[in-house]
Every structure is written in C-alpha cells, then in structure tokens.
C-alpha cells in the first residue's frame, strides 16, 4: 500500500498534477523506507543465527555480530583448530608423520604437555609440540622450522604469523594466551622486533617485553630477535634483558641475505637463519632441544598456519 501510495505521488509530480510548491510527502516517505527496509533486513540477519551464502560468499553481519567476528579472528581459527586438535590426538595424524631416520616412527600423542617442564642444562631429545609465533618474519621461518621438526620428530603445532605486529600486540592482548591454551605447545619460538627496530620508546617496549616473558614463563621457549636490516635503537637489548637468561637469540649478530622487498630475508636467508638458530638452541639455549639439520629440505608444510594483520587485528 505504502509503495503504491508513494509511487502514485511520484507519478503525480512527474505529470505535474501536484502543486509544484509543496514537497512530495510520498517521496520523502519512500526515501525513509529506502534506508529503513535494507537496514532492518541487515539488522535482522545480523541478529539471526542463519548465514546466507551467495555464490560461495557468506554475507557479513554487522555490529554485535561483527564484534564477535572480530574476536573470532582467533575463535574462528580456534574452531578450526579444534578440528586440528582432535586430529592431533587421533591416530590418523600420526600415520602421516614422517619420522626422522634415526628415531623411527613415534606417536605424537606421546608428546607430553606440561607447563612445569624442567630442562636443566641438558639437551632434551624427546619430541616437542612446537609453537612458532611472531611477526611477518615467521612467515618465512616457518617453512625452515617445518623441515627441522620433521627431521627431529617434533610436531610444529602452529605457525602464528602476525604481520606488522610489535611486542605491544603480543604482550597486551590475550591472543597469545588463547593460542597457548588451545595448541598446548611444549616449546615456543617467538620471533618479534622487525617492526620496531627503529623505535626509540624503549622503556615502554621493555615493559611490554617483560609482560610477554611472564606470559611464556613455565613453557620452555626461545625468543628470536629480528634480522638486522635496520639500525637498532636498543630493542634487541630490551628483549634480551626482559627474557629469561639464555632464552634470547640475538639474530642481530648474523648476516642474513635480504629478500626482494629488502625488508625480509630471502629464502636462502631464512635457511641460514634457521640453521644458526638450531645450532644455538641445541648448544647454548637455556632450553635445549634436539634440532639436527634436516637431511631433506623444503618438505611439504604440515602444520597449521594462522596469518593475521596487525592493522586489521590488534589482538584481544
């Protein structure tokens, strides 16, 4: 009825039947409906449990749903990771495990998860559930670590690549806590600092780094400093002082070839970096784990990879 009424009004105006000095109420009403109807539908859809998909693209929801989705950047992955977790604890996954020649076939379910792991000063040769997390440099390092894990019988449970992230993202969000809780790593590699080498607010970043170190306390970890592609105003030192003694690997001292974007290492650079890191972890780290060089390189990547962008997702 409203529609017909408004259209009738409109046709009246066009035909000149209506007084030219007065506004078309119908048209204004129709303008109002032009906003109310689509937005009401969008709101109803946003509050409903249903999801509409058109040509494989799911229609996004707004507001509260959006906020949920925002948290769900991780939760979505968590959902998927639940599947992943169940896989981790099934024998199905174990069958695809490519054991290192010397270790023979091992069941990953046997890899113990404990937060009170005591390494002492010895090399722990047991299989680990390794979590790699950090900024965009992780995106290249994860493939090298994948080779090492497959060689040494470890399971790379997750590579969490938080592009453009700084220590603030890692320290002041509970994203890391959630990931640790979900993926239950027995060993963590944290690679961070690339996006803050230029920083001069070292005091604030040291506080953040200390908080980060607290988050990791109880889990054996190695904190990997950023590649030395820029002048360092003290961030490496801040990280070193914040991390537990013997847990910070100063990439600063390593010469790494740059990649095409001049900001990240090249493939060869990542290899050099990982090889050096592996030697350090086996021999000098506080938490020493077995990381013998892989016989076979560039293996099929077999872990879960989460890619986030700090500009879109700052962490929760």
């Amino acid at each position, binding site marked *: 009825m409203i529609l017909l009424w408004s259209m009738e009004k409109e046709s009246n105006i066009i035909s000149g039947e209506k007084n030219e000095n007065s506004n078309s109420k119908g048209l*204004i009403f129709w303008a109002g409906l032009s*906003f109310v109807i*689509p937005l009401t539908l969008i709101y109803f859809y946003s509050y409903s449990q249903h999801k509409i998909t058109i040509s494989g693209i799911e229609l996004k929801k707004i507001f509260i749903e959006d906020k949920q989705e925002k948290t769900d950047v991780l939760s979505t992955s968590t959902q998927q990771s639940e599947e992943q977790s169940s896989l981790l604890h099934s024998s199905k996954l174990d069958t695809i495990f490519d054991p290192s020649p010397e270790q023979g076939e091992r069941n990953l379910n046997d890899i113990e998860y404990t937060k009170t792991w005591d390494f002492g000063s010895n090399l722990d040769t047991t299989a680990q559930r390794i979590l790699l997390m950090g900024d965009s440099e992780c995106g290249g390092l994860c493939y090298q670590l994948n080779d090492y894990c497959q060689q040494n019988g470890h399971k790379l449970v997750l590579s969490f690549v938080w592009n453009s992230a700084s220590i603030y993202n890692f320290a002041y969000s509970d994203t890391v806590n959630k990931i640790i809780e979900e993926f239950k790593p027995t060993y963590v590699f944290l690679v961070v600092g690339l996006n803050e080498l230029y920083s001069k607010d070292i005091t604030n970043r040291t506080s953040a780094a200390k908080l980060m170190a607290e988050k990791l306390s109880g889990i054996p970890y190695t904190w990997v400093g950023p590649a030395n592609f820029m002048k360092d105003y003290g961030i490496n030192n801040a990280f070193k002082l914040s991390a537990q003694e013997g847990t910070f690997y100063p990439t600063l001292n390593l010469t790494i070839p740059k990649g095409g974007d001049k900001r990240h290492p090249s493939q060869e650079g990542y290899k050099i970096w990982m090889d050096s890191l592996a030697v350090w972890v086996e021999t000098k780290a506080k938490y020493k784990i077995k990381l013998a060089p892989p016989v076979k390189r560039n293996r099929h990547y077999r872990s879960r990879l989460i890619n986030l962008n700090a500009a879109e997702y700052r962490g929760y």
Partner: protein
Amino acid sequence: MFQDLFTYNTKEPWFFTEYSFLLVFGIFLLLYALVVNNKKWKKIYIILFSLFFYYKSSGPFIGLFALMILSDYIFAHFIYKKEGRVKKLLLFLALLYSLSFLLYFKYSNFFISNFNSFLGTDFKLNNLFLPIGISFYTFQSISYLMDVYRKEIPPAKNFTDYVFYMTFFPHLVAGPIVRAKDFLPQIEKPQIIRLSLYKESLLRIIVGLLKKLFIADYLGKYVEIIHQGPDGFTGGENLLSMYAYSFQIYFDFSGYSDIAIGIALLLGYRLKENFDNPYGARNITSFWRKWHISLSLWLRDYIYIPLGGNRKGVFNTYLFLFITMLVGGLWHGADWRFVFWGMAHGIALILHKGWTHFFPKQSEKWYYKILGIIITFHFVGILWIFFRATSFESAFLSINQIFTATSWVDFQGFWMTRPEVMYLLAFSSIIVFTSQKWKQKIIDKIYLIPTFFWIILIAIALQVILQFKDDVVEPFIYFQF
C-alpha cells in the same frame, strides 16, 4: 541495543557511516514526511534531531555549543544596531567569546608545551577532549558575526532560525563550513523535494559511503603500517603510502561532504560543494580553489581580505597570503607539523602568484596540462606526509626513503605482497583524474534507474560495504579538526 541508541558512548560517537545512524535517519525521514509542509514544525523537528545527533557525537559538549549559539545570537543583534567604536568593541568581544572555546580546547596544550620547551618551565598539560566539530562551528559562528557586522546580512529573524542554521546536522560536525548568508535564506524557502532531488541525494549518500568505507578506510590501513616506522620500509613503499594517503584523505573528506550534501538535499536544503576534482588542478592556486572550498573561501573572506588582500601592494599581498595559509594550517591541528604544512602551501601560492605575474598566459597544450597536474599532485602529496606523520622526524624519514631508497625492484616486491593496495590505488587514480564531464555522463545513466530500484541499490551498497569494510570504522579524518 535500543538503550544504547539514546545514550552517548565516548567510544562509539555517531558518524554518518554508522549503520545505527542510517537506520535512525531513515525513521527520521518517515516522520519528516508528516511535517515537511509545515514550516514551523519542520524546523523544530530538524533542530531536535540535530541536537540529538550532536549529543550522540559529542555528549555533554552540547551545553558548550548551546552557550556559543546563544551568545552569538545576542551579540549579533547588538552589533547590527550599534555603530562606531561600540560596534567594533562588541564584535571584538563576540569573536573573543566564540574563539575562546576553540583556543582552550584545541590550542591550550599546544601553547603550554611550547612554553615549557622554550622557557624550561614545567606547567602541566590539561587533560582535554576536543569537542567534535568545534573548529567548524566556531568558523560558522565567526562568519555570521562578521557578515552581520559588515551588514551583508541582517541578524537571524528569530532564535529558532539561528539555532536551525548552527545545529543543522548534515554540516554540524565536519562541514562544509556553511555561511549564514547562503543558508538563512533557505530556511524560509527550501528546495522542493522532487524525484530528481531524491535521486541526486541518494546517489550522493551512496557514493559518499563507498568513498569512505570502501576506499579511504582500506587505504588507511596500509598508510598506518608505513607510518609506524617509515625507515623500516623501502622508498617505493613510502612513495605508495604517499599516494595512498593523498587518496585516503580525499575520499575520506569528500565522502563525508557527499553524505552531508546528500542528507541535506533529502531535507530540501542545498549545501555548497566542498570539492571540485582537486587533484585535477594544474597549479597550487587552482588546487586551493578546488580543495575544501568552504574553508578556502572562509579564509579568503575573513582573514585574507580583512588583512588587506591585494589592495596594499605586492609585498603585503604575499605576506597576507602567507599569514592566511599559516592560520589555515593551524586550524587543521595544534602541532608544528600543521603550521609547517600551512606555511609550505603559503610559500607555494606566493611562488605561483609570482610566476603568473611574469608569465600571465597559461599554455593550453595538453602536455603542459598533464605536467602541471603531475607536479601539483606530487607537491600536495609530499606535504600530506607532514599531515599524516606522527612527528617531523617520521615525516622526513619517509621523504628521505622516497628520494634515496626507491628502486623498481621495490614495486615488483610490492606487487607480489600487496596487490590489493595496487588495485585500489589504480582504481582511485581513475576516479580522481577522470574529468567531471565523464563522471557526469555515468551519473546521468544511473539517474535513469527507476525509483523503486533505488531501495535495492542502497541495500546492495550497504551489504557490499559490509563485505569489505573493517569491523572498526575509522572516524572521518576531518572530525578531529
């Protein structure tokens, strides 16, 4: 949800891009249809909604705004009636009162911090929240007082009219800066809302939303990454960030202006255009005639001309131009970066004025036109870096990277890692550098869509925006000014 709708939330002030605003605006229009032909109730209805809008945007600062409106109204009446020294004194007091809010909220910390750094004192900074739109409505207030003083317009007939002019929500928080002499006459004789006006206004709103949420916000994400540490990125990345920010600020602010103009049109009031293809300008003078037109005209009429304009010799003309742009820079923000930005534009305007003095004939050859556009765009773009950067140091680092660390390899790497930014930059360039004639041809085609289908057009636009937008919408850049 409904409770939230009527309360002010500091973390979620109302913008035109908020879907909750658009829904409430739709409901507002449904009821507006009932009062549109009754002048008195129409005015009251719009004023009430405008005050509600300002409350949702700025909360308790609505009281401050009300005080300014009341004082302007009273002062203007006295200024109009008096003559001589008393008149001047009244104008001075009125301007001082109007400006005092802006000076306190926007500039007091700037003065204190500079005072401290120059004299080594340790005065504490105030913990101030800048009321949204204060720079805009203060300038409107000044234009009204000055116009009344110059007897270019009589004071508003009644208080309701003046409140209507000042609070009219489409231009309230981020312009365009509307002059009383342009707007007050419209209150009595607004435009008749017809089909053409309906389509024009809806298209402006849709285009504005797409400009802001689809283009500006996306480019803004990339710009933010670069400005976190420009020296950590290659020259190419910094150069593309300069382009991205040039487009971002244009689409952000012109998108806002489009929405404001569209909403005002739906109510029957025409606000003046604020942009006219500014990046198509062949020189810096032309750029300032096309960019933020309402501010440029305001600066011309209330600073440059009162100072003396071009009536007091060549040197003074240049000096007044420089001072005007300096004020323009400071208007944008209480920071030396904005002062520098304004000064640089001032110098460029002086140089161009000097150039045209010696070479008054402008070549119409197409390659000179293109060269002029390229030079002007890049000059403006480089100065935008100071606008966007977090500090002088960061701005110079970015410029240094552009000039010393740019190579073709960067672009190849960039293309591999951020193709979507490249697509968007290319798309933005096409929009920005296409002449208005061509755009109008496309717009005319869109107007042929039957009225009924416009509702579907809006629905598609809103959902497309949702699909692509970040869940946190960045506030309009010009809200902060």
